């Protein structure tokens, strides 16, 4: 397959600008990393790997604010998911991830694949996913049938995927605010359990070891997620092409059972395993090789493909769902294949590990990429951002604090209960299987979901909390409050808070006011985490949540997990008996 442009044409025409790689970055790649002009495939890989989504180049300085260590933390941020010790050789494994753009564009599939992606992050660690939580934020429902449709489809997408996988939904939140009119938020969290001895890493090392691919075939789905998300919507109508990623929960169920089987029963065959998430094969393979301080050679003709005539660039960047990448010890190729065959899945060798640190791709007998692995993963230019206190906050500080006037408390209560954000969520939670696998002690509808750890007296509590409006008005206190809200939800269920995960949902960070809010609110989250001794063990950043230049409220989501030593101490939220006394604690 011919490259679409020559290196010289790329230098001249600068197509990478459309893929959100800057001229400064391009020059840096040419002059300092490659000492030559990159070809079309290579520059495509750089633009994906150096995107905010993969590199965190904008948000890294902010993420450094978070405390990430603690006596129970076995694995903090950086792997598929965070791992926290819950005694007896067991650990709870969890992470949250956003899928805001895909859900805004195609709510059902966006939500479904959001759930699917976060499950793979957890089971690739060697943990069995035991609960899903979903944090949903929609625009206004009133007089807005499109938003109602999007809401219904989003909920259906979350439900269908988790239900089909047989992973109970243990909680979440559903809020409505005009700031999400043009940009829905879907954050999915997954919690898994494992025996610490089974923990796996996204690692590829050992010259001569194999790179194997398993799961769904590769199509042209979600290529350049970022460009797709911002592409003019109406143009899409006329074409026969679609980059929508479609979820296949049945495939994922097989993949999950097969991977857990392999990890738990045959870990000596395996060097590492990682799911293919954003930026597909390139990000999973380059990250694994970096982790293992290795090089890698992949033959793209061996990658299972769903569509004919895919270019190297398309194969590498495809975001087709339900795929995993494995590094397998030399000599165990056939054994690994046999495990997957047992689940009607085909595992295919697509490459091998080398020790020269180079990332080499072959396609149709040509070398289409030959660059140092770390150029993709570690040499990313961090970007400085400007901060400026938002005008609306400065203005508000000059005014006297607003005092609510309540004339008719009964009416005010009714008005409050009428708010979709506050009204009953049964409509949502009824569509989710919350009991499958029979460990659910407290289902959605309480402060936190509570799940028994089968075979022990232990239980884990979990919840998600977001408070966009609060954070918008006072990012520092809003960030603190959000963590505190989670902690009170966990404590009220009878559990000790252990650690948190997060999704940082914000607008364009190049806007100094938004960056200031991002920084301040994360400082607030960090403050609260320090005091509550709940380190951040995993998380996700979603920037550029805007529509027509209107940003969403800064909306960090906190997902917290707590431990209950004896589930007989679980406290349900409901009033228990007539005649019981009611107390108000605190100020």
């Amino acid at each position, binding site marked *: 397959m011919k490259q679409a442009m020559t290196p010289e044409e790329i230098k001249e025409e600068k197509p990478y600008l459309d893929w959100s790689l800057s001229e400064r970055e391009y020059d840096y790649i040419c002059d300092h990393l490659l000492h030559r002009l990159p070809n079309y495939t290579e520059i495509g890989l750089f633009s994906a790997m150096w995107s905010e989504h993969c590199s965190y180049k904008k948000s890294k300085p902010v993420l450094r604010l978070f405390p990430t260590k603690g006596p129970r933390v076995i694995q903090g941020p950086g792997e598929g998911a965070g791992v926290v010790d819950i005694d007896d050789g067991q650990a709870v494994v969890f992470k949250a991830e956003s899928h805001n753009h895909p859900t805004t564009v195609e709510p059902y599939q966006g939500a479904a694949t959001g759930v699917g992606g976060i499950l793979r992050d957890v089971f690739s660690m060697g943990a069995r996913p035991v609960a899903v939580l979903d944090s949903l934020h929609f625009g206004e429902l009133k007089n807005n049938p499109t938003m109602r449709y999007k809401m219904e489809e989003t909920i*259906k997408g979350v*439900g269908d995927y988790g239900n089909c996988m047989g992973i109970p939904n243990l909680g979440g939140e559903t809020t409505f605010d005009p700031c999400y009119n043009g940009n829905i938020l879907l954050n999915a969290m997954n919690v898994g359990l494992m025996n610490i001895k089974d923990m796996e890493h996204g690692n590829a090392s050992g010259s001569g070891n194999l790179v194997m691919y398993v799961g769904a075939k590769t199509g042209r789905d979600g290529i350049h997620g970022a460009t797709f998300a911002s592409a003019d919507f109406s143009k899409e109508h006329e074409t026969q092409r679609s980059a929508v990623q479609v979820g*296949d929960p*049945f495939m994922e*169920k097989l993949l999950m059972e097969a991977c857990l089987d392999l990890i738990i029963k045959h870990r000596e065959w395996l060097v590492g395993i990682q799911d293919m998430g954003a930026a597909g094969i390139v990000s999973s393979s380059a990250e694994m090789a970096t982790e293992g301080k290795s090089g890698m050679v992949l033959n793209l003709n061996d990658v299972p493909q769903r569509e004919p005539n895919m270019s190297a660039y398309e194969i590498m960047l495809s975001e087709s769902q339900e795929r995993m990448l494995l590094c397998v010890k030399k000599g165990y190729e056939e054994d690994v294949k046999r495990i997957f065959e047992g689940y009607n899945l085909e595992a295919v060798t697509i490459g091998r590990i080398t020790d020269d640190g180079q990332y080499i791709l072959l396609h149709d007998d040509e070398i289409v990429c030959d660059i140092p692995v770390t150029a993709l993963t570690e040499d990313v230019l961090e970007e400085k951002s400007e901060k400026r206190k938002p005008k609306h906050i400065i203005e508000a500080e000059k005014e006297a604090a607003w005092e609510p006037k309540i004339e008719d408390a009964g009416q005010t209560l009714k008005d409050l209960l009428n708010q979709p954000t506050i009204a009953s969520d049964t409509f949502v939670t*009824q569509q989710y299987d919350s*009991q499958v696998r*029979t460990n659910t*002690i407290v289902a959605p509808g309480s402060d936190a979901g509570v799940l*028994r750890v089968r075979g022990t007296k232990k239980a884990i509590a979990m919840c998600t909390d977001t408070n966009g409006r609060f954070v918008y008005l006072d990012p520092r206190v809003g960030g603190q409050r959000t963590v505190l809200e989670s902690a009170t939800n966990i404590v009220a269920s009878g559990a000790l808070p252990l650690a948190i995960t997060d999704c940082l949902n914000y607008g364009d960070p190049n806007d100094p006011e938004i960056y200031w809010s991002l920084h301040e609110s994360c400082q607030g989250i960090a403050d609260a985490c320090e005091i509550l001794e709940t380190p951040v063990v995993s998380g996700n950043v979603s920037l550029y949540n805007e529509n027509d230049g209107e940003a969403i409220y800064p909306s960090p989501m906190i997902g917290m997990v707590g431990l209950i030593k004896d589930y007989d101490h679980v406290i349900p939220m409901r009033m228990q008996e007539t005649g019981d006394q009611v107390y108000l604690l605190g100020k």
Partner: protein
Amino acid sequence: MKIAVVVFPGSNCDVDMYEAFHSVLKADVKYVSYKEKSLDGFDMVALPGGFSYGDYLRAGAIARFSNIILAVQKMADEGKLVLGVCNGFQILTEMGLLPGALKRNDSLQFVCKDADLRVENAKTPFTTEYQEYQEIKIPIAHGEGSYYADEDVLDELEKNNQVVFRYIKNNPNGSLHDIAGICNKRGNVLGMMPHPERAVEAILGGVDGLPLFKSVLKAGVKA
């Protein structure tokens, strides 16, 4: 009494069913793969809930071509106990061991909640530990649970007392005659949408499913 829980690709309440027999009732239960051809040596087989083959065509439609299905048929013919819950019920209708079919819920939505049921027939080997017309609460969790059969089939079911569980108060899915579970004429094959295996421990919300498990274990002792 030896019980088999069949695992199809996409089964996901296999654990629920297994643990109800194993941890709660301390019965002799084993997982059996859908690839097996024989259930010899077992006295009962349970087809669990879930999404066999993703329910991608109709729920249960593809699973019924598995090897194990002939063995299930054989158990039914021999008068041994066959229990299908949720997806298992759908498979039993697809393979023709039970009449009728399960359609998409009238609401077009998946529904997970406690359902109020009445035990309409307490004489089957699955229900002897219930009282006739006892009202019970059992969780449901399905998207395709609306029972449908032609008029004459429904008449036949009613006449032979084959409707074992019926929804009361509120029909959650639009099933005809409020049917939640039916058995075959002989009474040794039961299919039901609600999940009795999810109602066997008080800590998880209720124990109204326990009598069903006690009934089958008692039937096993007598047999």
